[in-house]
């Protein structure tokens, strides 16, 4: 179809030959602050039909969750959530679960929206009839602009803004909820959630250190081995030094370095009850150093 491409671009260029385009406008007008971002977020999110809960700590949110979750029989839960915010319910696939639980990247006050990432899976955001979304209070932005700017550089395969339950007025202009997506959206704003992602309790930290030292002992055995990434791409562990692991991609011959410190951080995270289901989560939670290969190494060692 490259002929179609050249024809279309050719016609567009001819059409524009004699036209001088106006300058691209700069910053647009933005509404002025009348209340705090959090207050505005709560107002707008509720106006959009969502329920909003506010918590001063992860522990408080966890206590609320333990009781609130009782109305459901099972849940599909985001792998990005810390252990403290995983509901005490049996796991179910999103197709069957009555509840999906997400970890939002951010929230927008002016539109009343939460920003979700495909890194945690999309089905759990859409298929269960009820959707619970956790977001850190510090990630509530006043303007959509701030959220877009923050996430522009590192985009997962899909970001989504959810601003209320699924709805339609296509039947005689009468509003109906839960048409395809969740009919109930509950947003829990939690202070200190981002810290809970990374830190663990002192007791667990002891275990994490043991696990990290085990990592250091077991890595040299991988030298010279051929491993596969989650996608099935083969690579060779070329060299394991005191601080780094060097890998070479079999197909392209390109080499990458994974820092041992990052692998240890991942091991600590796993030991504290966190999950790293794949390279995207690795990049988000640990480091953006060759995440596909780093994750494959963790996988080979049986840590993920």
């Amino acid at each position, binding site marked *: *179809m*490259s002929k*179609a*491409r050249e*024809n*279309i*671009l050719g*016609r*567009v260029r*001819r*059409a*524009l030959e004699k036209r001088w*385009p*106006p*300058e*691209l406008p700069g910053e*647009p*007008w933005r509404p002025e602050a009348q209340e705090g971002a959090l207050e505005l977020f709560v107002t707008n999110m509720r106006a959009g039909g969502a329920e909003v809960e506010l918590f001063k700590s992860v522990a408080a949110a966890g206590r609320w969750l333990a009781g609130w979750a009782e109305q459901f029989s099972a849940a599909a839960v985001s*792998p990005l959530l810390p252990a403290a915010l995983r509901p005490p319910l049996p796991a179910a696939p999103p197709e069957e679960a009555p509840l999906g639980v997400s970890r939002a990247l951010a929230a927008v006050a002016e*539109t*009343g929206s939460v920003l979700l990432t*495909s*890194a*945690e*899976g*999309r*089905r759990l*955001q*859409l*298929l269960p009839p009820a959707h619970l979304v956790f977001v850190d209070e510090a990630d509530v932005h006043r303007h*959509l602009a701030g959220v*877009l*700017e923050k996430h*522009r550089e590192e*985009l*997962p*395969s*899909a*970001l*989504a*803004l*959810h*601003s209320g339950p*699924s709805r*339609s007025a*296509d*039947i*005689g*202009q*009468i509003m*109906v909820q*839960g*048409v*395809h*997506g969740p009919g109930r959206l509950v947003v829990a704003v939690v202070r200190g959630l981002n810290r809970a992602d990374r830190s663990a309790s002192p007791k667990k930290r002891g275990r994490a250190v043991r696990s990290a030292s085990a990592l250091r002992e077991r890595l040299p055995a991988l030298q010279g081995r051929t491993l596969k*990434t989650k996608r099935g791409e083969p690579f060779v562990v070329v060299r394991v030094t005191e601080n780094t692991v060097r890998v070479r991609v079999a197909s392209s011959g390109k080499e990458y370095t994974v820092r041992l410190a990052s692998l240890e951080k991942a091991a600590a995270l796993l030991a504290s009850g966190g999950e790293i289901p*794949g390279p*995207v989560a690795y990049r988000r939670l640990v480091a953006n150093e060759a*995440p596909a290969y780093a*994750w494959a190494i963790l996988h080979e060692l049986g840590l993920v």
Partner: protein
Amino acid sequence: MASGYKAAAKRALVERPEVRSAVTKATLHFDGNRARAYGEIDAEAWRDWAAGVKRHLLGRLDRYLEEAEAGLRAHGAVVHWAENAADVQEILRALVADYGVSRVVKGKSMLSEEVEVNPLLESLGVEVFETDLGEYIIQLAGEPPSHIVGPAIHKGLEEIRALFHEKLGTPADAEPTELAAAARRVLRDAFLSAEMGISGANFVVAETGTVVLVENEGNIRLTTSAPRVHVALVGIEKLLPRFGDLEVFLQLLARAATGQKIGTFVSLINGPRREGEPDGPEHLHVIFVDNGRSSVLADDEMYEALSCIRCGACLNACPVYRQTGGHAYGQVYSGPIGVVLTPGLKDPGLAAELGYACSLCTACADVCPVRIPLPGQILAWRRRSVERGLVSGGEKLAFNGYAAMVTRPRFYRLGSKLLRLGKGLTGAPWLPVLGAWAAGHGPLEPSPKSFREIWEEELAGE
């Protein structure tokens, strides 16, 4: 063109009076919400800004298309180019064969109507499910959409009840929630079993190669997430230069369309599923479609219409659309934007009829979020139709006569005098032109004295 707009509009008004009441109700509702939502913000500032971004984009469209293509490819999407409907169909035929597709779920896309995707897929033996509730309703009824945003607004609750009762076996007096639940059951199964999802695109960001989709039901998110292949049909004018431009466009689109702050679900798609992601489509194909857009771009009087973000605000504001609904136009795009775009995209000859689906009230220009000069463009199509001799002889004669009269003082004076003398006659139904007008408005009531007479009396008094 005897079977064209005028005949269809007449049929719509006479044979289906319930359409008029359903459409009027829905459009007034939408337009009221839009007016309130514009009032909450500095709508003038955002409209100026959005119009500026789109005009800039259209002025450098070639460059932005190349940038978007590169961005999409970098994310692992496959980019196709289609000059016309036949190209799109060929691409889809190949994709259906390559991926062994037997079921397709579709998100609402006007472009897919334009290039006739459903008939093609059905001819290939593929089962097609429109998943937007409104689109699903009209698919069941075997009708085309009648509004850009609310495809089934011409149908009232009673009609939809009867349709669902017949096709899905719901009770004859089912409540809207029951009807929606019945559709949800059928479509949920389709989402989970379809191999391919087809969507349109509200925007494609050139800077990041992001396909942006806006909706309220969640069906588009499912269409683009559940099947293993996602195909997005994108008109070449749908681009935005910068990721940050979405800030205003997402909010302005929602406010103009339905009065919401933002669409309930916004998808920002950057390629197929990545390593480590639990789900999502394995393949993303983006088809850039021209289908007449490059000729509209070359038209100095019409190209600004390519700024359109398909919010439907001009339809809701239009007193002509409010009476007949979209089907009378007989085209994919109806209302003021349809009148302007259709002749440019398809055939300039269509302007001879469509150009007159307008009272020149200019309400559309007052609401358009990207400031498309629709009334001027509609007038330009009328002028072109006259120049091309596409207007009927009688009409030409009448207007030439009228022009001759009002531009000559003596004839004008005579004419106005006759009107006053024959005052009792102006309501007579047998009078040509005036009779038809009076039937809807009551008889003309001319002033007892002409302005000229009053003027002269006033001067004499001084």
